[in-house]
């Protein structure tokens, strides 16, 4: 027989893949696990109790975890890895898509092909990631593309939120916080809400927030620009995964 899995083949069933694609699956399941950990961490950072000041220790630990994951993803090269579908895309296209991203999340969902997860992750040693329990089973690549896409794009914005959260913890600026958490109850992949708040295209909110918070911040315009630059960079990376 070819593989044991073939006999029990059921489309979309995860168990089938294990036998045949063990090697790739291990790597991709690690990436999936890591991805879901990243998702979870970012959600945790966003969803704080707004009545009481959030626990700084907890926020710092979660933020460090997020940084660690991002660093590892950068080191692995998965942060920048190009999926087969997008192998031929010119850098310019990516910038364009980023801009579309800023304008409206819904438009660009149709424009961009859904990247396959784990397709580009050929290398990367499988380090000792703690085994994910059944509750945290890696999501099947084919299911819930929108959910998977959404948060990843979010993370471009969420990357900013790490720093903003710490600053707003220090001196709370109601306007900025509202932008940041304007729809706490809505699904976290509501790009529109998050990104408009982050980028501050039409709204001056976040820039004001940055201005008001850290004295070290150079000035509203330059900070917005650097934010945009960084945001572009991060979103561009995320779009590729």
């Amino acid at each position, binding site marked *: 027989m070819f593989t044991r899995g073939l006999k029990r083949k059921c489309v979309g069933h995860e168990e089938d893949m294990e036998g045949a694609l063990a090697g790739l699956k291990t790597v991709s399941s690690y990436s999936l696990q*890591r991805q879901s950990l990243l998702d979870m961490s970012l959600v945790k950072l966003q969803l704080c109790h707004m*009545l*009481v000041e959030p626990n*700084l220790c907890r926020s710092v630990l979660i933020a460090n975890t997020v940084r660690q994951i991002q660093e590892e993803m950068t080191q692995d090269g998965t942060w920048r890895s190009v999926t087969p579908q997008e192998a031929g895309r010119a850098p310019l296209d990516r910038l364009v898509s980023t801009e579309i991203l800023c304008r409206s999340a819904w438009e660009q969902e149709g424009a961009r092909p859904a990247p396959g997860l784990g397709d580009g992750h050929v290398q990367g040693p499988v380090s*000792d990631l703690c085994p*994910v329990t059944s509750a945290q089973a890696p999501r099947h690549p084919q299911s819930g593309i929108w959910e998977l896409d959404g948060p990843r794009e979010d993370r471009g914005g969420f990357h900013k939120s790490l720093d903003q959260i*710490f600053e707003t913890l220090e001196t709370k600026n109601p306007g900025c916080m509202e932008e940041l958490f304007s729809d706490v109850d809505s699904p976290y992949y509501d790009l529109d809400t998050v990104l408009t708040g982050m980028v501050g295209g039409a709204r001056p909110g976040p820039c004001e927030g940055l201005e008001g918070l850290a004295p070290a911040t150079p000035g509203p315009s330059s900070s917005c620009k650097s934010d945009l630059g960084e945001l572009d960079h991060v979103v561009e990376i995320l779009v590729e995964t």
Partner: protein
Amino acid sequence: MKCFSRYLPYIFRPANTILSSSCHTEANVLPSGLLPSGQNKLGPWCSPTGSPAPLSCETGCGEGSWILVCRLLVPTQVSLLSMEEDIDTRKINNSFLRDHSYATEADIISTVEFNHTGELLATGDKGGRVVIFQREQESKNQIHRRGEYNVYSTFQSHEPEFDYLKSLEIEEKINKIRWLPQQNAAYFLLSTNDKTVKLWKVSERDKRPEGYNLKDEEGRLRDPATITTLRVPVLRPMDLMVEATPRRVFANAHTYHINSISVNSDYETYMSADDLRINLWNFEITNQSFNIVDIKPANMEELTEVITAAEFHPHHCNTFVYSSSKGTIRLCDMRASALCDRHTKFFEEPEDPSNRSFFSEIISSISDVKFSHSGRYIMTRDYLTVKVWDLNMENRPIETYQVHDYLRSKLCSLYENDCIFDKFECVWNGSDSVIMTGSYNNFFRMFDRNTKRDVTLEASRENSKPRAILKPRKVCVGGKRRKDEISVDSLDFSKKILHTAWHPSENIIAVAATNNLYIFQDKVN
């Protein structure tokens, strides 16, 4: 007809009444977990001959057996009634007759601390209240009652506040209580919430003046025309009243949440530590404090480490330690400089590369640090272990104890449900030979440093029958589960023992489980 006299001790403590956890109308039937207090029953902590067994903290945890002394329920609304008001029987009904599982969140105990003699035991809860229990006095007739603690005083220490500048609530939850050594008849303690530290004086009053000229016994003013003679008021004995008064309020010194307070061995100063700063206070001065540690980065975006706990050395008034969320401990000497940002000693264990994961940093975050009574060692608690460090060796701990290593494979789930951020405390026994810390499923663990034996015990109503010796518990990791074992997946992570305390000289421990306070004693035959 049920008699509610059992609830009176929770309101005030009459001097001549022998406090009892049970009501006189009940026969031998008691709720499970409470020990019988009738005259004809011997408590389990007596040896069969009836004389009290000598207790010594020299015995390790493995040699004695632990028995439940009493389970105390932190009183709910009843305790807030002042003594002048009438006791509303209906109110008592509603607060106490309901099932204990419906205890309000305000009753969750958030800190437990014995005083320096062990006579008093203070608890703070999420509702901002402090309840002080006093040990039952020894008496020849009632030897078996020794070791039982009863309510001595209850007061509202902190109220919820609102920070208008930040539009945030300030919780009234009591984070820590620390006793001052007793210097006169009154007792003093420090209690703190996230922002404000208060010094409380707890004193007894057992006499009151009688025979005023201008007022009658009920306090009503008398018509001066009716007064024909003058008399000198005299002090007459009255029922014992315990009153708590706030003597100092140390406020507005912390931007972040206070996690620790520690009284210095000079008994004149104390420190309060929040996430990024530590301040030194003088007890007499409330409007000023000295900042002795500041780890706040100039740019908050660079923040990666916070202070998690701090404590003064028990003997050297210039030395203190503080722990961080990265698993490090810094020992500082206040003589070196005014701002102790540069540590004198730095304790860190090198990371084990084989155990590395994304959760390594989180589980290395130290939740509690305690000096040994001798002052030679410090003990730290991180998520999975307890470590003992020698002050003279900075590069690694001298002892490491696994509290619940079976959780190592569950870290992802524990991260998801936030349990990984639980802050467990740890305590030394009086002779520094045994250390204790809590776990989940209402389990708590003791480690004997000399014999290297450890035991897991459970603080729960269901499993604590009167007079019974606590049975050691075991968690089964995988494979076949034996009869008495509990599997890891069956553990209840909502039942966590975060706060425990050990009597300073005897083998008596207090364990807080949600709104219940369990007091266990070592039974030595």
